């Protein structure tokens, strides 16, 4: 019933009644996007999926808010695609419930879910023209011919493909094919737009431009979007919130800044952004903060994961390459190290150094000066920042 209504009311208008008043209970989200509790765009409650004896997705709870751009991020096999397939209805959950727009859809087949999906290879119907591809969903809904033509044209304009209506998908470039796939998914005014690694088949230059464009379209239409990727860069730049997954479990849910700067476990810290691991010793622990000894240095670290560890136990401190600094050897407040290799990266140099304790670290040095001043073999002092450090128990 709701899917019929959805056909008639344009997406932007349809969503407005649900536009919520700010809700303090979910204040970790940008207030404008926070929805009423009962009207999450997608709600997975205790959803679980097994393939034979392998658990692809452990019992999972996840809310996708109206209009937000949510990214499922993780390495292959982490369960993100399973989660996507469960939302789309291509897979049936072994336990738990799935609600879309507050409506129970756990047992609803894909063709009644009113969901748009863009596949990695776009899955354009090779035997249909661009216009017939885009109009497919409307034909399946029995929309009158004239309205189909109008909406197809409108949507092709939205993705900047006017004049391509009669082409065959085979005659299009990768970027154009992706626009057709996007148009085909959007023209049915989906309650949720699912994107399955849509950029991975594009070459690097095109990818950036398509990302910006997708984000613009998504913001303009306000369509709730669930995006699956293994590329942390894509996730950080596009998402309102990121769901980091591994081994069939959600590891952390948060804004890009939260997962980047305040990772909750080793996996998240290591998967998002480049990171160095420094061995250290726990000195004092108070709540979620701790003091650790890094050689002769003392540092305050985030230590939510160190609960119940006794003082003196070994811990790993995670620090980003761009947070470390290079100082002259022997300078106070630094760790002694020796340059092992310099890797030219254009705007910066990645300086690889070996600590006296044997660990290899990478320091991101802006500019190209380091090439001349820090030849391999040079002794240096490694400056470790006071803030922005996170510690985890050793593996």
């Amino acid at each position, binding site marked *: 019933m709701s899917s019929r209504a959805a056909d008639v009311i344009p997406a932007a208008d349809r969503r407005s009644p649900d536009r919520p008043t700010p809700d303090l209970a979910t204040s970790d989200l940008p207030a404008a996007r926070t929805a009423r509790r009962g009207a999450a765009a997608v709600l997975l409650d205790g959803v679980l999926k097994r393939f034979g004896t392998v658990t692809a997705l452990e019992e999972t709870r996840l809310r996708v808010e109206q209009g937000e751009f949510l990214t499922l991020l993780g390495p292959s096999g982490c369960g993100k695609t399973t989660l996507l397939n469960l939302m*789309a*209805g*291509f897979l049936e959950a072994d336990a738990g419930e799935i609600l879309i727009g507050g409506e129970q859809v756990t047992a609803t*087949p*894909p*063709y*009644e*879910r*009113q*969901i*748009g*999906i863009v*596949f990695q*290879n776009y*899955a354009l*119907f*090779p*035997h249909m023209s661009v216009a017939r591809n885009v109009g*497919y*969903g409307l034909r*399946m*809904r029995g929309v009158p011919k004239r309205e189909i033509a109008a909406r197809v044209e409108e949507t092709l304009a939205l993705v900047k493909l006017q004049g391509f209506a009669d082409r065959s998908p085979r005659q299009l470039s990768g970027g154009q094919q992706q626009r057709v796939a996007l148009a*085909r*998914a959007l023209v*049915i005014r989906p309650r949720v737009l*699912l994107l399955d690694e849509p950029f991975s088949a594009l070459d690097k230059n095109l990818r950036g431009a398509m990302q910006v464009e997708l984000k613009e379209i998504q913001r303009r239409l306000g369509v709730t979007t669930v995006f699956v990727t293994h590329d942390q860069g894509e996730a950080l730049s596009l998402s309102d919130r990121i769901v980091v997954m591994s081994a069939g479990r959600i590891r952390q849910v948060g804004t890009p800044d939260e997962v980047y700067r305040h990772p909750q476990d080793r996996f998240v810290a290591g998967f998002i952004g480049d990171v160095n691991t420094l061995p250290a010793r726990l000195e004092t622990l108070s709540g979620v903060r701790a003091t650790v000894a890094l050689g002769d240095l003392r540092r305050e670290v985030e230590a939510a994961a160190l609960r119940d560890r006794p003082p003196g136990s070994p811990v790993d401190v995670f620090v980003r390459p761009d947070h470390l600094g290079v100082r002259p050897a022997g300078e106070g407040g630094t760790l002694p190290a020796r340059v092992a290799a310099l890797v030219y990266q254009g705007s910066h140099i990645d300086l690889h150094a070996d600590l006296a304790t044997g660990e290899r670290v990478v320091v991101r040095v802006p500019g190209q000066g380091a090439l001349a001043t820090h030849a391999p073999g040079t002794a240096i002092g490694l400056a470790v920042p006071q803030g922005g450090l996170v510690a985890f128990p050793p593996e």
Partner: protein
Amino acid sequence: MGRRLSTRLLRVSGRLLVGLILAFIVLPAVVVTIAAFNERAILSFPPTGYSTRWFTRALTYRDFQTGLWNSLVVTAWSSTLALLVGTGFAIALKRYAFRFKGTLEGVLLSPLIVPHFTIGLGLLMLATGIAAGQGFPVLVLTHVIVVLPFVIRSVFISLQNIDGRLELAAASLGARPGAVLATITLPLLAPGLVSGWLFAAILSFNEFTASLFVTSQATQTLPVAMYGYVREFADPTLAAVSVIYIAVTAALLTFANMVLGLGRVLNVEQSR
């Protein structure tokens, strides 16, 4: 230098060898064509004169006329039925898990290994047992059984080349299973269906051993009639029929190769 020479020698002798083997393959067809135009009633080489009278006799010989008609009827029925049965089964085989799937597949593909004379004998005994005699239904059933493995294989390979995500995309766009089948799966499957039907038809039209067991004088197919003829006469009439057979089959295959890419259907294209 010596190496290059030996390589070239190898290549030339390889080509010669392949040429000879291909000559072995076409030899009977060539010889039978010459024999068909032979003027004399006794097969002899080289022919003393040329004539088309054996073609005339072949086309007017009653057994061949009824045999041809029977063959066309049986071929049309059995290849069409096999296509319907085989397409559905290939889809189920590729897409679904169901009870007795492996058993069913094994039984349906068994005519590739079980000798045709065994299949023919079995159906003859079955037909005798239920008093169906050697009528057309049993004959058509026999042909369906014999050609079905080829249809299943042809459709299955075509299904493998269809990206399953196309069907998922269609479903997400609101297409019910019937609509997915009608608007996505079957149109994309069309070349596989045409080639499956074509192969089924050619094989059915040529089927002999199993047919021999389940046909009577009234229902005998063209190959059975030809076999009967070769046992009784030694004139070149059969050569004329053979030439017609060879020409039609080669034409159909050349057509299939041009339209569908025989190499793809037979799965012998170099993968890279």
